[in-house]
């Protein structure tokens, strides 16, 4: 489905349909209610809506799933953002004494945006992406997902395609939701290797663990490098051709020590093939490692600077920072922010993510294969009394949104197992008294 078919002018017409028949409210509520373990967890959550003409409404909150549904169907937001859980209901924030209305908890979130890689990708710039640079997101997800699970011990990670040029990660573990601002920024810094703005050419500096101010070759970096190495040759050397054109070669060489740079420049006069050029770089790096000169790790530094995930640290730091919600529409592309199944990460294609007009069209199509679907659906009909509710479930199942909702369900089932433990503990405690 080419996104050129999408025109944001059609949103006012199709958003009502999306929110009435397709938006997975029950899963959405199930997620944000977190099993009702903590009182008022859903009720004190901030939502904010972007309406037509960029009208931005903050501090929305809802007491029940029905209220959320009704309000969204009434407002038909172009975009939905999720904020923190506050000490009071966000929609009443003006009625409490200033200073007492505070953001208490939120998922630990990460925002990776392709624009932050503009200095190392040659295929596109700014908001544009293509399948060549999308590899960067794949690498980022691999590295971060491993670190968050293995190093930090988090289990409930929801990766979401932002709908345009990046991905978001929602770490939903209870421990993650309760992290302080300082802890969030420490986690984000632990995960950030690429540092510096436009005035800094060399953004990754590795050393042995001696100098206190730089990044050392520690376990974390070794793991990250292992991931980058898998992709580097195809992504950087072939797709981006970083050792092909002169300007990009110069950029790479700028990251090597001066004496090495001179030698490589001469070598490159005779060697034009990127793969072989990279071999020469590696060769130089190996030789240097035998010496005690500075800049021993330039090979690794180049790989990390070109491929290592670049986080927007400010998004992760703040408890009250808003982030675009899963299943929100991206108003510029019309694509739905869908949860990503990491089992299929390698084949994830952002251009195959359904747009709002595609799934709305799919609803209008004559019901082919209705028969086989029915057998599945009758079961649901039995348990589900409400006919309208069950029709809604059938509705999204008839569209390309189905597989993403199904994955979201799996994710929620995983979390529900941990809530059950919590709830059991709670009821045990109550019996004791």
């Amino acid at each position, binding site marked *: 489905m080419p996104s050129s078919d999408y025109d944001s002018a059609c949103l006012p017409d199709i958003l009502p349909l999306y929110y009435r028949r397709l938006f997975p409210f029950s899963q959405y509520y199930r997620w944000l209610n977190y099993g009702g373990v903590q009182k008022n967890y859903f009720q004190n959550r901030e939502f904010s809506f972007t309406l037509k003409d960029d009208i931005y409404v903050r501090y929305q909150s809802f007491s029940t799933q029905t209220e959320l549904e009704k309000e969204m169907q009434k407002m038909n937001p172009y975009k939905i953002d999720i904020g923190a859980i506050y000490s009071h209901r966000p929609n009443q924030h003006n009625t409490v004494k200033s200073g007492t209305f505070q953001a208490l908890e939120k998922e630990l979130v990460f925002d990776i945006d392709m624009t932050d890689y503009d200095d190392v990708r040659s295929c596109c710039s700014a908001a544009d992406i293509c399948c060549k640079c999308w590899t960067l997101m794949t690498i980022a997800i691999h590295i971060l997902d491993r670190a968050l699970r293995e190093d930090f011990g988090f289990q409930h990670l929801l990766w979401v395609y932002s709908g345009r040029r990046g991905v978001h990660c929602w770490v939903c573990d209870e421990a993650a939701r309760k992290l302080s601002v300082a802890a969030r920024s*420490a986690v984000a810094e632990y995960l950030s290797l690429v540092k*510096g703005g*436009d*005035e800094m050419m060399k953004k990754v500096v590795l050393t042995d663990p001696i100098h206190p101010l730089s990044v050392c070759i*520690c376990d974390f970096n070794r793991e990250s490098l292992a991931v980058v190495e898998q992709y580097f040759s195809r992504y950087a050397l072939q797709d981006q051709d970083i050792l092909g054109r002169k300007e990009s070669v110069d950029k790479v060489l700028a990251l090597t020590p001066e004496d090495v740079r001179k030698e490589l420049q001469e070598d490159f006069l005779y060697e034009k093939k990127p793969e072989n050029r990279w071999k020469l770089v590696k060769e130089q790096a190996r030789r240097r490692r035998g010496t005690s000169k500075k800049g021993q790790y330039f090979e690794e530094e180049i790989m990390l600077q070109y491929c290592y995930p670049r986080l927007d640290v400010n998004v992760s730091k703040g408890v009250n920072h808003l982030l675009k919600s899963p299943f929100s529409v991206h108003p510029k592309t019309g694509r739905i922010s869908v949860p990503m199944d990491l089992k299929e990460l390698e084949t994830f294609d952002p251009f195959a993510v359904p747009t709002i007009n595609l799934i709305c069209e799919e609803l209008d199509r004559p019901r082919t294969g209705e028969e086989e679907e029915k057998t599945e659906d009758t079961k649901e009909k039995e348990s589900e009394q409400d006919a309208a509710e069950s029709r809604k479930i059938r509705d999204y199942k008839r569209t390309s949104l189905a597989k993403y909702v199904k994955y979201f369900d799996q994710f929620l089932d995983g979390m529900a197992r941990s809530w059950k433990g919590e709830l059991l503990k709670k009821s045990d405690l109550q019996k004791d008294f």
Partner: protein
Amino acid sequence: MQFPSRRKKFITNSQTELYGHPLQFYGQPPLENISLTEFEALAVDRLKLLKTIENLGVSYVKLSDQYTKKLQFESKTLNFPYRPDADDRKSQAGPIELEKRRKDHISHFILRLAYCQTEDLRRWFIQQEVDLFRHRFNDLNPKQKLEFLHRNNLQYETISVEEKKTLKDKLVKSSYAASGVTVEDQEFYKVPFQDALDLVRTRKVYLKAGYVYIPHHDIVTIVLNDFRTRLSKALALTARSLPAVHSDERLQPLLNHLSHAYVGQDYSIQKNVGKISLEQIDSLSGKSFPLCMRQIHQSLRENHHLRHGGRMQYGLFLKGIGLSLEQALQFWRSEFIKGKVDADKFDKAYAYSIRHMFGKEGKRTDYTPYSCMKVILSNAPSQGDHHGCPFRHSDPELLKQKLQFYKVSPSGISQILELVKGMHYQLACQKYFELTHNLEDASFSLNHPNQYFIESQKVLGGGKDIKREMDAPQRSQENSATRGSSAAPEEAANASQDLAEGTEELDSFFQDA
């Protein structure tokens, strides 16, 4: 907080008990009676100590030799405990040492009263106290450290010998400065990563499934975390009982004054609003802007856009030199619409944040321009950003080219780069000021971009660049600024000798320190 109006008997015995160790966790508030003069004197001294800590933290690597030496020296001058007794056979510290510990104790609690009032104050106070504590804890010998843990009932979970064996490789590789030998000799503590954020942040510790494994060598991290948590809770509690303290009209003005002293001048007083026209900004940026602002200005003119970090740093600076809200809106709009943003989009997406800066939106805080400290330490620039401190956040090679372009002499450039190498970013900037203004020695100590601007205008002829209708208020501000800085060294020197002369002195000390 039971301080200081409660009457309690002064018991010397309990004092030796209370001050038995050179370092304390400040668990118990002091209960004795002291005079107002002493109250003030103690507070002022501690404030000076904390201010020194803040400054040292910018100029030196924390806990480096120079840092430690300077901090010891300052503690000694101000009569604070500065070095744990070298002779640990003497279990009882002498009366002079006890007096110092008492001073440390009481002054800490006084500043808690002054610094519990707002989030900003609390954050600053906690940061400096934590740095002070870290420095002092590091100065203890191993025996004293254990004694300290014991006295304060600090127990942390250690890992078993077997666990240590299985993890040995990982522990050696990840633990900063631990070699194979010491891994076996040392206890390792296993704590949730939230309790050792400093080590996590820098990846200097083995982190597995949410737990960090800390060698005894680094136990200071856990203790510090404990200290920070307790202090933060204590400040929140103190804030709640503050109304009672504020009803005492002797204390309230004093406490308020103390809490205002920490930032020094914040350059938010806009006596010269509207004295600068938008046409002047280009020429002023070449002559009187510090390098950081010049850099942002240039990239704004080139790209017709700035990301949030740059808009904040530059926008507040411009506000500080006297742009009115209307001018600011006009300035940003006219630049942004040359780029990809049209006027409509600007009004929707950017105008809000500019009004916000001027305290006209949201919680209506009138934001103050960023100090050098803030620019250097917080919100480092990332891809696409041009803000930050050019001396801190640029490749030395790029910085060199830039300085060459700005026609700084080769010898000047090498002096600046030398300072940068030593991480003296503010001194590097001051050197740049001296070189570009043809001064031998600038008579101020630079700590604020807006201060740079004011000083530069002064050198360039009392602000001839600023519109001629310079009237009385403008001049008086200039005058007071001149007076403040020329008197600085003298007053600072007096300040350390003559303690309780009054709080005016304190003001100038912090403005110029």
